[in-house]
Protein backbone atom coordinates (compact mmCIF):
# COMPACT_ATOMS: atom_id res chain seq x y z
CA UNK A 1 0.00 0.00 0.00
CA UNK A 2 1.12 3.51 -0.67
CA UNK A 3 0.75 5.68 2.40
CA UNK A 4 -0.96 8.66 0.83
CA UNK A 5 -4.08 8.92 -1.26
CA UNK A 6 -3.98 9.59 -4.98
CA UNK A 7 -6.33 9.21 -7.89
CA UNK A 8 -5.95 7.10 -11.00
CA UNK A 9 -7.01 7.50 -14.62
CA UNK A 10 -6.33 5.21 -17.51
CA UNK A 11 -5.54 6.88 -20.82
CA UNK A 12 -6.63 5.26 -24.10
CA UNK A 13 -4.12 7.21 -26.18
CA UNK A 14 -0.86 8.99 -25.49
CA UNK A 15 -2.54 12.27 -26.54
CA UNK A 16 -5.16 11.75 -23.85
CA UNK A 17 -2.43 11.06 -21.29
CA UNK A 18 -0.65 14.29 -22.23
CA UNK A 19 -3.91 16.26 -21.91
CA UNK A 20 -4.53 14.79 -18.43
CA UNK A 21 -0.98 15.57 -17.31
CA UNK A 22 -1.31 19.12 -18.63
CA UNK A 23 -4.56 19.69 -16.75
CA UNK A 24 -3.04 18.67 -13.43
CA UNK A 25 0.21 20.63 -13.92
CA UNK A 26 2.80 19.19 -11.59
CA UNK A 27 0.49 17.05 -9.49
CA UNK A 28 0.14 14.20 -12.00
CA UNK A 29 2.55 11.53 -13.17
CA UNK A 30 2.49 9.01 -15.98
CA UNK A 31 2.48 5.38 -14.87
CA UNK A 32 4.05 2.91 -17.32
CA UNK A 33 5.43 -0.30 -15.78
CA UNK A 34 5.51 1.39 -12.38
CA UNK A 35 8.75 -0.35 -11.37
CA UNK A 36 10.50 2.93 -10.71
CA UNK A 37 7.59 5.22 -9.88
CA UNK A 38 5.74 3.03 -7.37
CA UNK A 39 8.76 2.22 -5.17
CA UNK A 40 9.49 5.98 -5.25
CA UNK A 41 5.94 6.73 -4.10
CA UNK A 42 6.18 4.07 -1.41
CA UNK A 43 9.20 5.87 0.01
CA UNK A 44 7.25 9.13 -0.44
CA UNK A 45 10.00 10.70 -2.51
CA UNK A 46 7.27 11.68 -4.93
CA UNK A 47 3.65 12.34 -3.93
CA UNK A 48 1.55 12.85 -7.05
CA UNK A 49 -2.18 13.44 -6.69
CA UNK A 50 -2.98 11.56 -9.88
CA UNK A 51 -1.44 8.69 -11.79
CA UNK A 52 -2.19 8.58 -15.49
CA UNK A 53 -1.87 4.94 -16.49
CA UNK A 54 -0.41 4.16 -19.91
CA UNK A 55 -1.06 0.42 -19.52
CA UNK A 56 -4.20 0.54 -21.68
CA UNK A 57 -2.22 1.77 -24.69
CA UNK A 58 -0.90 -1.07 -26.82
CA UNK A 59 2.67 -0.37 -27.99
CA UNK A 60 3.38 -0.65 -31.72
CA UNK A 61 5.75 -3.43 -32.70
CA UNK A 62 9.35 -2.35 -33.47
CA UNK A 63 9.65 -1.55 -37.17
CA UNK A 64 12.37 -0.81 -39.69
CA UNK A 65 11.59 2.37 -41.65
CA UNK A 66 12.29 3.03 -45.35
CA UNK A 67 15.67 4.68 -44.57
CA UNK A 68 16.80 1.62 -42.62
CA UNK A 69 16.37 3.24 -39.21
CA UNK A 70 14.40 1.40 -36.54
CA UNK A 71 11.49 2.87 -34.59
CA UNK A 72 10.60 1.50 -31.18
CA UNK A 73 7.51 2.50 -29.24
CA UNK A 74 8.39 4.00 -25.84
CA UNK A 75 5.77 1.76 -24.20
CA UNK A 76 7.57 -1.40 -25.36
CA UNK A 77 8.35 -3.68 -22.43
CA UNK A 78 12.00 -4.45 -21.77
CA UNK A 79 11.28 -8.20 -22.03
CA UNK A 80 9.89 -7.59 -25.53
CA UNK A 81 13.03 -5.65 -26.44
CA UNK A 82 15.47 -8.29 -25.21
CA UNK A 83 13.56 -11.12 -26.89
CA UNK A 84 12.55 -9.44 -30.15
CA UNK A 85 14.18 -11.18 -33.10
CA UNK A 86 14.15 -7.90 -35.04
CA UNK A 87 15.75 -5.83 -32.28
CA UNK A 88 18.41 -8.48 -31.62
CA UNK A 89 19.32 -8.58 -35.30
CA UNK A 90 19.18 -4.87 -36.18
CA UNK A 91 20.24 -3.23 -32.88
CA UNK A 92 21.86 -5.95 -30.77
CA UNK A 93 23.37 -3.40 -28.37
CA UNK A 94 19.86 -2.22 -27.44
CA UNK A 95 18.68 -5.80 -26.85
CA UNK A 96 21.77 -6.43 -24.72
CA UNK A 97 21.23 -3.29 -22.63
CA UNK A 98 17.60 -4.26 -21.97
CA UNK A 99 18.71 -7.79 -21.06
CA UNK A 100 20.84 -6.56 -18.14
CA UNK A 101 18.18 -4.35 -16.48
CA UNK A 102 16.97 -5.49 -13.03
CA UNK A 103 15.58 -9.03 -12.84
CA UNK A 104 13.17 -10.82 -15.14
CA UNK A 105 10.05 -9.49 -13.38
CA UNK A 106 11.33 -5.91 -13.70
CA UNK A 107 11.90 -6.49 -17.43
CA UNK A 108 8.44 -8.04 -17.82
CA UNK A 109 6.85 -4.93 -16.28
CA UNK A 110 9.23 -2.07 -17.09
CA UNK A 111 9.07 -0.12 -20.35
CA UNK A 112 11.62 1.62 -22.56
CA UNK A 113 10.16 5.08 -21.86
CA UNK A 114 10.05 4.46 -18.11
CA UNK A 115 13.62 3.23 -18.17
CA UNK A 116 14.84 6.43 -19.83
CA UNK A 117 12.72 8.62 -17.53
CA UNK A 118 13.59 6.83 -14.29
CA UNK A 119 14.54 8.92 -11.26
CA UNK A 120 18.15 9.49 -10.27
CA UNK A 121 19.32 7.43 -7.31
CA UNK A 122 21.06 8.09 -4.00
CA UNK A 123 21.28 5.79 -0.96
CA UNK A 124 20.05 8.61 1.25
CA UNK A 125 17.05 9.19 -0.98
CA UNK A 126 16.01 5.62 -1.78
CA UNK A 127 14.70 4.52 1.58
CA UNK A 128 11.81 5.31 3.87
CA UNK A 129 12.41 8.54 5.71
CA UNK A 130 10.82 7.62 9.03
CA UNK A 131 13.92 6.34 10.84
CA UNK A 132 16.99 8.03 9.43
CA UNK A 133 17.51 10.85 6.92
CA UNK A 134 14.15 12.20 8.02
CA UNK A 135 14.68 15.87 7.20
CA UNK A 136 14.15 16.28 3.46
CA UNK A 137 17.31 16.78 1.39
CA UNK A 138 17.46 19.14 -1.61
CA UNK A 139 16.03 16.46 -3.86
CA UNK A 140 12.94 16.27 -1.66
CA UNK A 141 12.59 20.03 -1.49
CA UNK A 142 14.53 20.43 1.76
CA UNK A 143 17.65 22.28 2.80
CA UNK A 144 20.43 19.70 3.21
CA UNK A 145 22.43 17.03 1.43
CA UNK A 146 23.45 14.01 3.51
CA UNK A 147 26.43 12.54 1.62
CA UNK A 148 27.79 15.92 0.44
CA UNK A 149 27.07 18.37 3.25
CA UNK A 150 29.62 20.87 1.96
CA UNK A 151 27.94 21.15 -1.43
CA UNK A 152 26.64 24.53 -2.46
CA UNK A 153 22.93 24.84 -1.66
CA UNK A 154 20.70 22.92 -4.03
CA UNK A 155 23.41 20.86 -5.65
CA UNK A 156 22.25 17.25 -5.76
CA UNK A 157 24.81 14.61 -6.70
CA UNK A 158 22.46 11.72 -7.25
CA UNK A 159 23.23 9.26 -10.02
CA UNK A 160 21.23 8.34 -13.12
CA UNK A 161 21.28 4.55 -13.46
CA UNK A 162 19.57 3.62 -16.73
CA UNK A 163 21.38 0.79 -18.53
CA UNK A 164 19.63 1.54 -21.80
CA UNK A 165 20.32 5.29 -22.17
CA UNK A 166 24.11 4.84 -22.67
CA UNK A 167 23.48 2.28 -25.44
CA UNK A 168 21.00 4.59 -27.19
CA UNK A 169 23.35 7.57 -26.99
CA UNK A 170 26.23 5.51 -28.40
CA UNK A 171 23.88 4.50 -31.22
CA UNK A 172 23.12 8.18 -31.88
CA UNK A 173 19.41 7.57 -31.27
CA UNK A 174 16.66 10.16 -31.01
CA UNK A 175 13.46 10.31 -28.99
CA UNK A 176 10.11 11.48 -30.26
CA UNK A 177 8.39 13.54 -27.58
CA UNK A 178 4.66 14.23 -27.49
CA UNK A 179 3.52 17.43 -25.82
CA UNK A 180 0.39 19.56 -25.81
CA UNK A 181 1.40 21.34 -28.99
CA UNK A 182 2.54 18.29 -30.93
CA UNK A 183 5.65 16.19 -31.28
CA UNK A 184 9.28 17.19 -31.23
CA UNK A 185 12.35 15.11 -31.82
CA UNK A 186 15.64 15.43 -29.94
CA UNK A 187 18.80 13.37 -29.56
CA UNK A 188 18.58 10.97 -26.62
CA UNK A 189 21.71 12.73 -25.40
CA UNK A 190 19.77 16.02 -25.16
CA UNK A 191 17.23 14.41 -22.84
CA UNK A 192 19.61 14.81 -19.89
CA UNK A 193 20.26 18.10 -18.13
CA UNK A 194 23.11 17.00 -15.85
CA UNK A 195 21.20 18.47 -12.90
CA UNK A 196 20.29 15.90 -10.25
CA UNK A 197 17.33 17.99 -9.10
CA UNK A 198 15.77 17.96 -12.55
CA UNK A 199 17.58 15.32 -14.54
CA UNK A 200 15.33 15.27 -17.62
CA UNK A 201 14.75 17.98 -20.22
CA UNK A 202 11.01 17.23 -20.36
CA UNK A 203 8.16 19.45 -19.26
CA UNK A 204 5.43 18.14 -16.94
CA UNK A 205 3.05 17.34 -19.78
CA UNK A 206 5.51 15.74 -22.18
CA UNK A 207 5.81 12.00 -22.81
CA UNK A 208 8.22 9.92 -24.83
CA UNK A 209 6.43 8.36 -27.77
CA UNK A 210 9.19 6.49 -29.57
CA UNK A 211 12.90 5.94 -29.90
CA UNK A 212 14.49 6.15 -33.36
CA UNK A 213 17.83 4.52 -34.06
CA UNK A 214 19.64 5.24 -37.34
CA UNK A 215 20.70 2.38 -39.59
CA UNK A 216 24.20 1.03 -39.01
CA UNK A 217 26.65 1.70 -41.86
CA UNK A 218 29.12 -0.95 -43.07
CA UNK A 219 32.11 -1.06 -40.73
CA UNK A 220 29.98 -0.46 -37.62
CA UNK A 221 30.82 -2.36 -34.46
CA UNK A 222 29.85 -2.05 -30.81
CA UNK A 223 30.70 -3.00 -27.25
CA UNK A 224 28.51 -2.87 -24.15
CA UNK A 225 29.26 -3.74 -20.55
CA UNK A 226 27.44 -3.24 -17.27
CA UNK A 227 29.92 -3.51 -14.45
CA UNK A 228 28.37 -4.98 -11.29
CA UNK A 229 29.41 -6.72 -8.09
CA UNK A 230 27.05 -9.71 -8.14
CA UNK A 231 26.22 -9.92 -11.83
CA UNK A 232 22.45 -9.85 -11.36
CA UNK A 233 19.59 -7.67 -10.09
CA UNK A 234 21.82 -4.75 -9.43
CA UNK A 235 22.33 -1.19 -10.56
CA UNK A 236 25.57 -0.66 -12.46
CA UNK A 237 28.84 0.52 -10.92
CA UNK A 238 29.35 1.83 -14.43
CA UNK A 239 27.67 1.15 -17.76
CA UNK A 240 29.95 1.34 -20.79
CA UNK A 241 28.60 1.66 -24.32
CA UNK A 242 30.85 2.01 -27.34
CA UNK A 243 29.98 2.42 -31.04
CA UNK A 244 32.84 2.41 -33.53
CA UNK A 245 32.98 2.94 -37.24
CA UNK A 246 35.93 1.15 -38.88
CA UNK A 247 37.50 1.77 -42.30
CA UNK A 248 37.78 -1.07 -44.81
CA UNK A 249 41.06 -2.26 -43.31
CA UNK A 250 39.07 -3.17 -40.20
CA UNK A 251 41.55 -1.35 -37.88
CA UNK A 252 41.37 2.36 -38.63
CA UNK A 253 38.67 4.12 -36.67
CA UNK A 254 36.65 6.65 -38.68
CA UNK A 255 34.13 7.51 -35.97
CA UNK A 256 33.72 6.71 -32.28
CA UNK A 257 31.04 7.27 -29.70
CA UNK A 258 31.77 6.36 -26.09
CA UNK A 259 29.20 6.68 -23.31
CA UNK A 260 29.63 6.07 -19.60
CA UNK A 261 26.46 5.66 -17.54
CA UNK A 262 25.59 5.12 -13.85
CA UNK A 263 28.35 7.41 -12.58
CA UNK A 264 26.84 10.90 -12.79
CA UNK A 265 23.52 12.79 -12.93
CA UNK A 266 23.20 11.71 -16.57
CA UNK A 267 25.15 9.60 -19.07
CA UNK A 268 28.52 11.14 -20.00
CA UNK A 269 30.29 11.29 -23.38
CA UNK A 270 34.07 11.79 -23.17
CA UNK A 271 34.34 13.73 -26.41
CA UNK A 272 38.12 14.25 -26.30
CA UNK A 273 38.72 10.52 -25.83
CA UNK A 274 36.40 9.80 -28.77
CA UNK A 275 38.36 12.23 -30.93
CA UNK A 276 41.65 10.67 -29.91
CA UNK A 277 40.55 7.47 -31.67
CA UNK A 278 39.29 8.97 -34.92
CA UNK A 279 41.62 8.55 -37.88
CA UNK A 280 43.88 6.26 -35.84
CA UNK A 281 44.69 2.58 -35.90
CA UNK A 282 43.02 0.90 -32.94
CA UNK A 283 45.78 -0.91 -31.13
CA UNK A 284 45.90 -1.87 -27.48
CA UNK A 285 47.90 1.13 -26.45
CA UNK A 286 45.52 3.60 -28.04
CA UNK A 287 42.46 1.99 -26.49
CA UNK A 288 44.17 1.88 -23.10
CA UNK A 289 44.95 5.59 -23.40
CA UNK A 290 41.38 6.49 -24.40
CA UNK A 291 40.07 4.52 -21.42
CA UNK A 292 42.45 6.27 -19.04
CA UNK A 293 41.53 9.70 -20.44
CA UNK A 294 37.84 8.89 -20.09
CA UNK A 295 38.23 7.77 -16.52
CA UNK A 296 39.85 11.12 -15.69
CA UNK A 297 37.34 13.40 -17.40
CA UNK A 298 34.21 11.56 -16.31
CA UNK A 299 34.90 12.41 -12.68
CA UNK A 300 32.46 9.81 -11.24
CA UNK A 301 30.31 10.71 -8.25
CA UNK A 302 30.93 8.38 -5.32
CA UNK A 303 27.73 6.32 -5.06
CA UNK A 304 26.37 3.20 -3.39
CA UNK A 305 29.41 2.93 -1.16
CA UNK A 306 31.99 3.06 -3.95
CA UNK A 307 34.74 5.66 -3.69
CA UNK A 308 35.62 7.97 -6.54
CA UNK A 309 39.06 6.34 -6.84
CA UNK A 310 37.50 2.89 -7.16
CA UNK A 311 34.94 4.03 -9.72
CA UNK A 312 37.66 5.70 -11.79
CA UNK A 313 39.72 2.50 -11.91
CA UNK A 314 36.59 0.56 -12.70
CA UNK A 315 35.76 2.80 -15.67
CA UNK A 316 39.32 2.63 -16.98
CA UNK A 317 39.55 -1.16 -16.90
CA UNK A 318 36.08 -1.91 -18.19
CA UNK A 319 36.16 0.69 -20.94
CA UNK A 320 39.46 -0.71 -22.23
CA UNK A 321 37.92 -4.19 -22.32
CA UNK A 322 34.71 -2.92 -23.93
CA UNK A 323 36.68 -1.18 -26.70
CA UNK A 324 38.75 -4.34 -27.25
CA UNK A 325 35.59 -6.42 -27.42
CA UNK A 326 34.08 -4.08 -30.01
CA UNK A 327 37.15 -4.52 -32.18
CA UNK A 328 37.10 -8.29 -31.68
CA UNK A 329 33.44 -8.36 -32.68
CA UNK A 330 34.30 -6.63 -35.97
CA UNK A 331 37.05 -9.22 -36.61
CA UNK A 332 34.77 -12.14 -35.78
CA UNK A 333 32.15 -10.78 -38.15
CA UNK A 334 34.75 -10.34 -40.87
CA UNK A 335 35.99 -13.90 -40.31
CA UNK A 336 32.45 -15.28 -40.30
CA UNK A 337 31.63 -13.67 -43.62
Amino acid at each position, binding site marked *: *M*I*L*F*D*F*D*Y*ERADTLEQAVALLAR*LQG*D*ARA*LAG*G*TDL*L*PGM*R*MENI*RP*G*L*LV*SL*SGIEPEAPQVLADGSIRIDALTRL*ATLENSELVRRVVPMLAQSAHVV*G*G*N*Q*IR*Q*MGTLGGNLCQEVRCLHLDQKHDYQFVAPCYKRGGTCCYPFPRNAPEVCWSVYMSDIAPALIALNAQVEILGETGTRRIDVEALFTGNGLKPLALSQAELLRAVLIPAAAPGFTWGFHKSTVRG*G*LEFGMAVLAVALQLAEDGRTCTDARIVVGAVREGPVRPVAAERSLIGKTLDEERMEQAAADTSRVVNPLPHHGFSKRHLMDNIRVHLRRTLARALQRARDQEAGR
Partner: protein
Amino acid sequence: MHETGVVMLDVSKGKDVRVGAVAGAQSRTRLISLCVNGEWHEVAVKPRIMLVEVIRDTIGLTGTKASCESGICGACTVLIEGRPVLACITLAVECDGKQIRTVEGLAEGEKLSVVQEAFLDQGAVQCGFCTPGMLMSATALLERNPKPTRQDINKALEGNLCRCTGYNAIVDAVLQASGQENVKPVMK
Protein backbone atom coordinates in the same frame (compact mmCIF):
# COMPACT_ATOMS: atom_id res chain seq x y z
CA MET B 1 -12.89 -22.46 -1.53
CA HIS B 2 -12.86 -18.73 -0.94
CA GLU B 3 -15.83 -16.44 -0.76
CA THR B 4 -16.17 -14.15 -3.72
CA GLY B 5 -17.58 -10.86 -2.66
CA VAL B 6 -17.20 -7.15 -2.54
CA VAL B 7 -14.83 -6.05 0.16
CA MET B 8 -14.00 -2.45 0.95
CA LEU B 9 -10.33 -1.76 1.40
CA ASP B 10 -8.82 1.40 2.69
CA VAL B 11 -11.64 3.60 3.82
CA SER B 12 -9.27 5.58 6.03
CA LYS B 13 -9.81 9.31 5.92
CA GLY B 14 -6.83 10.58 7.89
CA LYS B 15 -5.25 13.97 7.40
CA ASP B 16 -2.80 12.04 5.27
CA VAL B 17 -5.35 11.96 2.46
CA ARG B 18 -4.21 14.01 -0.49
CA VAL B 19 -5.81 16.10 -3.15
CA GLY B 20 -7.13 13.94 -5.98
CA ALA B 21 -7.56 14.55 -9.69
CA VAL B 22 -9.98 17.36 -9.00
CA ALA B 23 -8.57 19.68 -6.38
CA GLY B 24 -10.07 18.88 -2.98
CA ALA B 25 -11.61 15.60 -4.05
CA GLN B 26 -10.64 12.23 -2.66
CA SER B 27 -9.60 9.34 -4.84
CA ARG B 28 -12.37 7.23 -6.25
CA THR B 29 -12.81 3.66 -5.04
CA ARG B 30 -13.05 1.31 -8.00
CA LEU B 31 -14.67 -2.03 -8.52
CA ILE B 32 -12.34 -4.41 -10.27
CA SER B 33 -12.65 -8.05 -11.35
CA LEU B 34 -9.70 -10.38 -11.16
CA CYS B 35 -9.54 -14.01 -12.19
CA VAL B 36 -7.23 -15.65 -9.66
CA ASN B 37 -6.40 -19.30 -10.33
CA GLY B 38 -9.51 -19.64 -12.49
CA GLU B 39 -11.93 -18.03 -10.04
CA TRP B 40 -13.33 -14.51 -10.56
CA HIS B 41 -13.31 -12.07 -7.67
CA GLU B 42 -14.84 -8.61 -7.51
CA VAL B 43 -13.01 -6.25 -5.23
CA ALA B 44 -13.43 -2.57 -4.41
CA VAL B 45 -10.09 -0.82 -4.14
CA LYS B 46 -8.54 2.58 -3.79
CA PRO B 47 -5.80 3.23 -6.37
CA ARG B 48 -3.11 3.01 -3.71
CA ILE B 49 -3.81 -0.65 -2.92
CA MET B 50 -1.34 -3.14 -4.38
CA LEU B 51 -2.18 -6.45 -6.01
CA VAL B 52 -0.36 -8.38 -3.26
CA GLU B 53 -2.73 -6.91 -0.65
CA VAL B 54 -5.80 -7.92 -2.62
CA ILE B 55 -4.46 -11.44 -3.11
CA ARG B 56 -3.44 -11.93 0.52
CA ASP B 57 -5.78 -9.80 2.59
CA THR B 58 -8.99 -9.68 0.56
CA ILE B 59 -9.02 -12.94 -1.36
CA GLY B 60 -7.17 -14.70 1.44
CA LEU B 61 -4.54 -16.53 -0.60
CA THR B 62 -1.52 -16.10 1.65
CA GLY B 63 0.85 -18.29 -0.36
CA THR B 64 2.11 -15.21 -2.17
CA LYS B 65 4.53 -13.46 0.18
CA ALA B 66 5.10 -9.77 0.80
CA SER B 67 8.63 -9.12 1.95
CA CYS B 68 10.62 -6.11 0.74
CA GLU B 69 7.51 -4.54 -0.83
CA SER B 70 9.71 -2.49 -3.09
CA GLY B 71 10.39 -4.72 -6.08
CA ILE B 72 13.71 -6.16 -4.99
CA CYS B 73 13.22 -9.67 -3.60
CA GLY B 74 10.69 -11.43 -5.84
CA ALA B 75 8.80 -13.10 -2.95
CA CYS B 76 5.55 -11.60 -4.26
CA THR B 77 5.96 -12.93 -7.83
CA VAL B 78 2.67 -13.95 -9.48
CA LEU B 79 1.81 -14.58 -13.11
CA ILE B 80 -0.36 -12.01 -14.86
CA GLU B 81 -1.45 -13.34 -18.24
CA GLY B 82 1.43 -15.82 -17.93
CA ARG B 83 4.13 -13.22 -17.25
CA PRO B 84 5.97 -13.18 -13.91
CA VAL B 85 5.44 -9.80 -12.24
CA LEU B 86 5.87 -8.33 -8.77
CA ALA B 87 2.54 -8.02 -6.98
CA CYS B 88 4.00 -5.61 -4.41
CA ILE B 89 4.60 -2.90 -7.01
CA THR B 90 1.54 -3.53 -9.16
CA LEU B 91 -1.52 -1.42 -8.46
CA ALA B 92 -4.60 -3.59 -8.06
CA VAL B 93 -6.58 -1.20 -10.30
CA GLU B 94 -4.15 -2.03 -13.11
CA CYS B 95 -5.23 -5.69 -12.96
CA ASP B 96 -8.91 -5.24 -13.78
CA GLY B 97 -10.05 -8.09 -16.02
CA LYS B 98 -6.73 -9.91 -15.81
CA GLN B 99 -5.89 -13.60 -15.39
CA ILE B 100 -3.68 -14.09 -12.36
CA ARG B 101 -1.95 -17.24 -11.14
CA THR B 102 -0.51 -17.67 -7.67
CA VAL B 103 1.34 -20.53 -6.02
CA GLU B 104 -2.00 -22.00 -4.85
CA GLY B 105 -2.89 -22.52 -8.50
CA LEU B 106 0.06 -24.81 -9.26
CA ALA B 107 -1.12 -28.04 -7.63
CA GLU B 108 -4.16 -29.90 -8.93
CA GLY B 109 -5.95 -30.86 -5.75
CA GLU B 110 -3.46 -32.94 -3.76
CA LYS B 111 -1.18 -33.43 -6.76
CA LEU B 112 1.77 -31.07 -6.77
CA SER B 113 3.06 -29.67 -10.04
CA VAL B 114 6.24 -31.07 -11.54
CA VAL B 115 8.18 -27.99 -10.43
CA GLN B 116 6.87 -28.26 -6.87
CA GLU B 117 7.81 -31.97 -6.73
CA ALA B 118 11.31 -31.19 -7.99
CA PHE B 119 11.77 -28.47 -5.34
CA LEU B 120 10.85 -31.00 -2.65
CA ASP B 121 13.12 -33.65 -4.11
CA GLN B 122 16.15 -31.39 -4.37
CA GLY B 123 15.68 -29.83 -0.93
CA ALA B 124 15.29 -26.47 -2.64
CA VAL B 125 13.15 -25.20 0.25
CA GLN B 126 14.52 -24.20 3.64
CA CYS B 127 12.61 -21.44 5.42
CA GLY B 128 10.31 -21.36 2.40
CA PHE B 129 9.73 -17.64 2.24
CA CYS B 130 11.17 -17.24 -1.25
CA THR B 131 9.63 -20.49 -2.50
CA PRO B 132 6.25 -19.26 -3.84
CA GLY B 133 8.01 -16.56 -5.87
CA MET B 134 10.69 -18.99 -7.07
CA LEU B 135 8.02 -21.49 -8.13
CA MET B 136 6.13 -18.84 -10.12
CA SER B 137 9.27 -17.59 -11.88
CA ALA B 138 10.33 -21.17 -12.63
CA THR B 139 6.85 -22.11 -13.88
CA ALA B 140 6.82 -19.11 -16.23
CA LEU B 141 10.28 -20.02 -17.52
CA LEU B 142 9.38 -23.64 -18.25
CA GLU B 143 6.17 -22.64 -20.02
CA ARG B 144 8.17 -20.41 -22.37
CA ASN B 145 11.34 -22.50 -22.57
CA PRO B 146 10.80 -26.20 -21.64
CA LYS B 147 14.51 -27.13 -21.87
CA PRO B 148 16.43 -24.24 -20.28
CA THR B 149 20.18 -24.27 -19.70
CA ARG B 150 21.61 -23.48 -16.25
CA GLN B 151 22.35 -20.01 -17.57
CA ASP B 152 18.74 -19.53 -18.72
CA ILE B 153 17.57 -20.57 -15.25
CA ASN B 154 19.96 -18.20 -13.48
CA LYS B 155 18.71 -15.35 -15.65
CA ALA B 156 15.02 -16.24 -15.13
CA LEU B 157 15.46 -16.44 -11.34
CA GLU B 158 17.69 -13.37 -11.10
CA GLY B 159 14.85 -11.35 -9.59
CA ASN B 160 14.15 -13.88 -6.81
CA LEU B 161 16.36 -13.64 -3.74
CA CYS B 162 16.88 -16.57 -1.35
CA ARG B 163 18.70 -16.12 1.94
CA CYS B 164 18.87 -19.84 2.78
CA THR B 165 19.62 -22.31 0.04
CA GLY B 166 22.53 -20.77 -1.82
CA TYR B 167 20.49 -21.22 -5.03
CA ASN B 168 22.19 -24.40 -6.32
CA ALA B 169 19.43 -26.69 -5.11
CA ILE B 170 16.85 -24.36 -6.67
CA VAL B 171 18.56 -24.34 -10.06
CA ASP B 172 18.93 -28.13 -9.88
CA ALA B 173 15.23 -28.44 -9.09
CA VAL B 174 14.26 -26.41 -12.16
CA LEU B 175 16.58 -28.53 -14.31
CA GLN B 176 15.03 -31.68 -12.86
CA ALA B 177 11.53 -30.37 -13.50
CA SER B 178 12.46 -29.77 -17.12
CA GLY B 179 13.26 -33.48 -17.42
CA GLN B 180 16.86 -32.97 -18.47
CA GLU B 181 19.54 -35.57 -17.85
CA ASN B 182 22.20 -33.43 -16.22
CA VAL B 183 20.81 -33.50 -12.69
CA LYS B 184 20.28 -36.50 -10.39
CA PRO B 185 17.13 -36.78 -8.33
CA VAL B 186 18.11 -36.76 -4.67
CA MET B 187 15.33 -38.70 -3.00
CA LYS B 188 13.63 -40.55 -5.83
